[in-house]
């Protein structure tokens, strides 16, 4: 059983939703990333989504774009991200790590070379935002063969026919993008998300996480009532932008509050 699967099953047994924070690797500089990852776990993270910096983050809003730019100032490549995950694994063998990024850095490294290196570093899943299932048949096969879960996005615009295609390829969990837009967009509509998840559940048997537009404990709590996992990204990166002083502690405190709110939600 994969690390993601086992964490998700434990949570389901406890009737809790997973908390999945996102930060960009190497933001504000690579030397602090591992410390921040541990702080996220201390704050209650069940899975960590780690952004791979890219020069042209087309699906991201200004906050995560700036995170990529800060990391790239320190030449944080995909290989460096894998080294950071390996460092994190020195002191954490249980929290799944999912890399989230764009196709080209993986393409440049080579899909199989990357998959082997990622598994060796302790990566559990990969979400390539600009690679829809139609173009991911080969890479998903390679990732699965090496023991990486290919994570896919579903959107409010996704019709049932495409949900089925994603259901066939995805493992670990799927990530439902709660609104039309880029990361860090306006707040989501919880009732709308609940209705859409009910439809998705007819086709998808693995856990469904919800992200985009979740920026406080209250929204996280509301989403946790209907989703299997709650993803928070831009809100955490905004903490990074406030400066390095006390950053790990601020991330831990923020997530702890979210965690408590989510766990108090009867699912």
């Amino acid at each position, binding site marked *: 059983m994969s690390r993601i699967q086992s964490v998700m099953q434990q949570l389901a047994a406890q009737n809790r939703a997973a908390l999945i924070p996102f930060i960009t690797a190497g933001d504000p500089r690579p030397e602090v990333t591992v410390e921040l990852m541990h702080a996220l776990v201390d704050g209650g993270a069940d899975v960590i989504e780690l952004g791979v910096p890219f020069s042209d983050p087309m*699906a991201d809003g200004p906050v995560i774009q700036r995170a990529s730019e800060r990391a790239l100032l320190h030449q944080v*490549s995909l290989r460096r991200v894998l080294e950071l995950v390996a460092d994190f694994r020195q002191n954490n063998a249980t929290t799944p790590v999912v890399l989230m990024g764009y196709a080209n850095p993986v393409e440049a490294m080579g899909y199989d070379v990357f998959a082997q290196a990622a598994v060796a570093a302790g990566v559990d899943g990969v979400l390539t935002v*600009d690679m*829809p299932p139609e173009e991911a048949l080969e890479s998903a096969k390679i990732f699965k063969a090496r023991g990486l879960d290919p994570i896919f996005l579903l959107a409010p615009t996704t019709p049932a026919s495409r949900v089925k295609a994603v259901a066939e390829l995805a493992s670990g969990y799927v990530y439902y*993008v709660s609104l039309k*837009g*880029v990361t860090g967009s306006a707040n989501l509509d919880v009732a709308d998300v609940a209705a859409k998840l009910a439809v998705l559940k007819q086709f998808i048997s693995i856990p469904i996480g919800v992200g985009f537009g979740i920026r406080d404990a209250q929204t996280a709590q509301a989403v946790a009532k209907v989703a299997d996992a709650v993803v928070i990204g831009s809100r955490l990166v905004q903490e990074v932008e406030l400066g390095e002083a006390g950053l790990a502690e601020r991330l831990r405190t923020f997530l702890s509050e979210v965690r408590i709110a989510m766990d108090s939600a009867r699912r």
Partner: protein
Amino acid sequence: MSEIYQQPDVRGHFGPHGGIYVAETLMPALDELRIEFEKAIKDPAFMDEYRYVLKHYVGRPSPVYHAERWSNALGGAQIYLKREDLNHTGAHKVNNTIGQALLAKRMGKKRVIAETGAGQHGVASATVAARYGMECVVYMGAEDVVRQAPNVYRMKLLGATVVPVTSGTKTLKDAMNEAMRDWVTNVDSTYYIIGTAAGPHPYPQLVRDFQVVIGEECKVQMQEMIGRQPDAILACVGGGSNAIGIFYPYIDVPNVRLIGVEAGGDGVETGRHAAPLTSNAKNGVLHGQRSYLMQDADGQISETHSISAGLDYPGVGPEHSHLKDIGRAEYVAINDDEALAAFHDLCLYEGIIPALESSHALAQAAKMAKTMRKDEVLLVNLSGRGDKDIPTIAKMSGIQL
């Protein structure tokens, strides 16, 4: 070539290039666009309207002109120019924006967005938006807003909103990122008019099919003027829409060389250029497609350099990558200084002010003509006029306007 050329495949692949690489939110919109485009292009009423507008609004067919004085001065092959610069709005871009505006209208979209480098596509988009009563937002790199100031003002006069993009390298690729972000946010109401034969399927095919009118006219016009087809056709290549438009009808015509001219910037050997094909860049994924792409060893997209904002792009349309692979087209680079020399030559010998983009193709033609016989013929796609470049040229010459 023994088989008839037929590209792309149903999913938009040109060999290993092309495809659809976008976030899930856009996939249904691209599917809808593909289906609507396939219907429209087979709908006689749609195509009649497109041709009518090209004739009466754009002024097509654009003439082919024998640049006799320049050819004589060079002392070799005869250079003919396909005068896309004479189109309404001053470049080939309008052929495509008319087609896409008609598609947008057919799909009931009231808002269009576009990216632009030199501003020609932005102007062409703003023009058709005004013509069809649509809201228009144009994304333009902040650096290009400065170097193409006349076009920025033209777009504003035409009622468009121009949004300067300050992220990344502040040029065409960043404008395209920002347009994609707008589209993903406003996908229900908005039609994205991509300006070049690149991006996710069906755009490379769709833009090509709205630009092939250039090459189709040339086939007739060359036959009328010289009784045969040219020995070689030259066109500048950024994303490659004017080039694919003139090349495509000739792909199955034997003995016509097709030569794409990329921006060599300071020289391909210096690394400061925008010539992914000439520099043998690796395949990569950007802006919804897989194609040859300038990038570093880690897969980060490289900064590009060109005097011409319209060619200042690290990638290239997937069909050009394919034509390079199969050897049907050749790709070369022309440096900034060579393009500038050709720009001035055309002004002084022919009384035509060419766009800096097109000047790259002119420079390659000049280079080749000198080595060829006087009865040989080169056809250059003069894709746009150079009025927009006058401030840039003046500045380089140390002249205060």
